[in-house]
């Protein structure tokens, strides 16, 4: 555990970057420091590996003051990932990744073997090993940065806005990759970002900091969304935090109806039978069970269902894997007000109305379902 104990950083000109900050960063989880620019989040991160020395207070790593060991020994035991990757442009990818193992005195072969292993782990093709950083895309460079930080298998990983400089699609990929790697490796990660959505997506715990280096709130993301400590945190979270909080509620509890689902080749009898249910619309699927669109029973003629005239079905959610947010989104997107639940292969499991989703939301609130199971839903 990293324990930040009443730490203050004051610069010679009197600026206070961090003001009596105390935080307990739990092991084997991602703790995100988030806040507007100038809130001291990067300074805090840099105090953990002593790139910045605190003016007051202390930082303990597993109960031992980080001042107790030589600074470079401390740093080599903590991976560090920075915005724009900060790769050594004059070294090949594999040698970039092998930097810390080499510093620790590993042989060249062992370091490179380890580096090759990490390239695979972060999803880099081995053909890139002998390339130079300029030959890689921004996203690939950032992966190299992560691999380099992990090279010596440090227990702690410090990440300073690592994904801020890449485009949103690549960023999402890198975030998912980080969560996957974290599931495998279980590092103690301290992650700095100014992006609250990134914080909520990645963080097990989120520390919201405000200008002047003060801690505004330290809580799991779901709690942050449901009970922001003050106006500042609420403002920082932005609008629709209620909707976003639904990301933490699993959709597995939703009861889907399979009645109003008909295949495109349904005969008149079947159409009549399904249409008689008290639903105004039927979901038409293709022969494989994948959704095609909604139609009113009276508009559907057996054997002659005009696929082009069906109403859009929005975006289906994967039942049990996606959250209530995805389910609600699907319902809001379709003019019918119904959401389509599918399985992992995209085949329709059943449909659910806004009313049922709303009830599930009420139930979830009542149960306060924000446990680990819900966390995995994201």
């Amino acid at each position, binding site marked *: 555990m990293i324990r930040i104990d009443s730490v203050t950083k004051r610069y010679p000109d009197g600026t206070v970057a961090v003001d009596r900050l105390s935080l307990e960063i739990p092991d084997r989880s991602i703790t995100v420091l988030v806040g507007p620019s100038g809130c001291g989040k990067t300074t805090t991160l840099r105090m953990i590996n002593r790139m910045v020395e605190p003016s007051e207070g202390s930082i303990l790593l597993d109960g031992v003051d980080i001042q107790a060991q030589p600074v470079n020994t*401390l740093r080599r035991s903590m991976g560090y990932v920075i915005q724009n990757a900060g790769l*050594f442009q*004059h070294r090949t990818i594999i040698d970039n990744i092998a930097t810390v193992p080499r*510093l620790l005195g590993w042989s060249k072969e062992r370091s490179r073997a380890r580096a090759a292993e990490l390239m695979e782990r972060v999803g880099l093709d081995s053909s890139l090993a002998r390339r130079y950083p*300029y030959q890689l895309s921004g996203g690939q460079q950032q992966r190299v940065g992560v691999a*380099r930080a992990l090279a010596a298998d440090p227990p702690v990983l410090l990440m300073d806005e690592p994904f801020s400089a890449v485009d949103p699609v690549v960023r999402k990929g890198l975030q998912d990759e980080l969560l996957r790697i974290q599931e495998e490796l279980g590092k103690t990660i301290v992650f700095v970002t100014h992006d609250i959505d990134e914080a909520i997506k990645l963080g097990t715990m989120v520390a919201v900091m405000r200008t002047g280096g003060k801690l505004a709130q330290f809580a799991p993301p779901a709690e942050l969304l449901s009970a922001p400590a003050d106006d500042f945190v609420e403002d920082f979270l932005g609008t629709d935090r209620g909707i976003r909080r639904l990301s933490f509620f699993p959709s597995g509890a939703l009861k889907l109806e399979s009645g109003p689902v008909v295949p495109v080749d349904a005969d008149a009898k079947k159409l009549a039978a399904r249409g008689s249910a008290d639903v105004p619309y039927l979901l038409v699927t293709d022969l494989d069970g994948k959704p095609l669109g909604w139609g009113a029973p009276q508009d559907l003629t057996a054997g002659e269902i005009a696929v082009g005239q069906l109403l859009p079905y929005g975006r289906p959610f994967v039942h049990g894997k996606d959250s209530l947010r995805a389910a609600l989104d699907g319902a809001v997107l379709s003019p019918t007000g119904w959401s389509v639940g599918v399985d992992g292969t995209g085949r329709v499991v059943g449909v659910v109305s806004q009313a049922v989703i709303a009830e599930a939301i009420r139930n979830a609130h009542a149960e306060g379902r924000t446990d680990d199971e819900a966390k995995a839903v994201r």
Partner: protein
Amino acid sequence: MSGFFDIPSDLQHSYLGLIGLHLREALIPVLVGLLVSLPIAQLCVRFRWLYPPVLGVTTVLYAVPSLAFFVFLIDYTGQSETTVMIPLAVYSLVVLVPAIVDGVRSVPPETLAAATAMGLGAVRRYFQVQLPIAVPAIIAGLRVATVSSISLVSIGMLIGNQGALGNLLNDANIYHRPELAVNAVLTMAALAILADAALVLVRRVLTPWMPRKGAAR
């Protein structure tokens, strides 16, 4: 018969001998200049306030005429190659110090931060990160310093024929053999071009990591 490559005997060297001498007198000062510039530049990077005064001093030194240097140095080092080479080494500083400082400063801050965070101490950071990344800028400086040094060596003629190929200019005058002057100028130009090309080659070899012009990412 007075041929183009017939070197008067007072110079005590063949044509090739003069070329060798010329290269030695031109290149050793650049090398010495480089060795002196590296620590000076590093100090300037470390202590920012030092850079402007250092630049001022090197510029003033560059403005001192070589003749004045010779008059001063001759008491100590006599009419020797050393007397020619010392001013040349001093002149090279005006190009090399800023080239190295700019090169070292061109290292992106995040690269430096990453190096620090990975536990590279100041010495490792300098030799393993800053210096290699500064190589293109340093070689750009060396190219200017080398070419100018090759042309400046000829002034050594003034102190007892220590100007290598430059001595031919004097002999052209004494012996009324203008072709010797043409020879000297053309040879020096050729040496400058070849030395420059050699440095470009060295940079290519040392920096496989630089994006090639026109190459796709």
